[in-house]
């Protein structure tokens, strides 16, 4: 991979790096500092990148390690003093869809980091379970169980009706159907 290709590759990944960094740290300002550090480290270690492997996965590994070693504490401080970007974004743009998004982001921010990061990687970035497992340095089974727990926790936080809720509803529907259509007056 030529230096120019490498640079172009980095540029192409910046939006994803920012999105992942913001999802991790909860702050756009911290995210940009984190992306800057990541780009600097990537540039300095360009010879360690293996052409043909996923540049995104490689960069996410650097970003994630940088976050956990340097930024995690700062992230909490910034969130305490300024709130998360989710709070600020809540007032912009299309009211209805942004209310939903803001609610979702607040719930997302409440997840434990180890669950939030894998849910984002697997569910939004296009990284595979295998790549995510490699980035986090754990087994694929661990990633799967974290994703499951993250989804369940989100459903709970957002009060989305899950399987547990379907039970009673299903029973009510069944009872109503047996009683005859004229009683279906809900």
């Amino acid at each position, binding site marked *: 991979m030529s*230096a120019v290709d490498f*640079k172009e590759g*980095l*540029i192409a990944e*910046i*939006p*994803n790096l*920012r*999105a992942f960094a*913001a*999802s991790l740290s909860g702050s*756009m300002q911290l995210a*940009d500092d984190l*992306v*800057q550090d990541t*780009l*600097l480290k990537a*540039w300095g270690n360009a010879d360690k990148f293996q052409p043909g492997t996923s540049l995104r996965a490689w960069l996410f590994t650097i970003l994630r390690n940088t976050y956990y070693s340097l930024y995690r504490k700062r992230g909490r401080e910034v969130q305490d003093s300024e709130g998360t970007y989710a709070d600020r974004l809540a007032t912009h743009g299309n009211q209805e*869809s942004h209310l*939903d*998004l803001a609610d*979702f*982001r607040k719930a*997302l921010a409440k997840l434990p980091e180890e669950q939030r990061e894998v*849910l*984002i990687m697997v*569910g*939004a*970035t296009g990284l595979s379970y295998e790549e995510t497992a490699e980035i986090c340095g754990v087994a694929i089974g661990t990633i*799967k*169980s974290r994703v*499951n*727990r993250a*989804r*369940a926790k*989100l*459903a*709970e936080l*957002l009060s*989305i*009706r*899950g*399987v*547990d809720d*379907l*039970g009673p509803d*299903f*029973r009510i529907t*069944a*009872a109503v159907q047996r009683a005859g259509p004229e009683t279906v007056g809900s």
Partner: protein
Amino acid sequence: MNLMNADPPEAARVDDDDEAVLNPKVQESIGRSLKAHYDDLVNSPVPDRFLALLAQLEATEQRLRTEDGADERG
């Protein structure tokens, strides 16, 4: 008759159970929100500082290379 007693089996419990199976519609809804959250961030304008940084790194590298060449000649 079993409809009244059709309690969700253990596997359907969502708390603290890795094998919990969420309703596919719930999963779909979470998946959509996740994409909306992430894509919104991905599509937000990228500050100029990153392009400037990479241009600077590239220029520094080229200058060093040129200087190396000059050293060898000199």
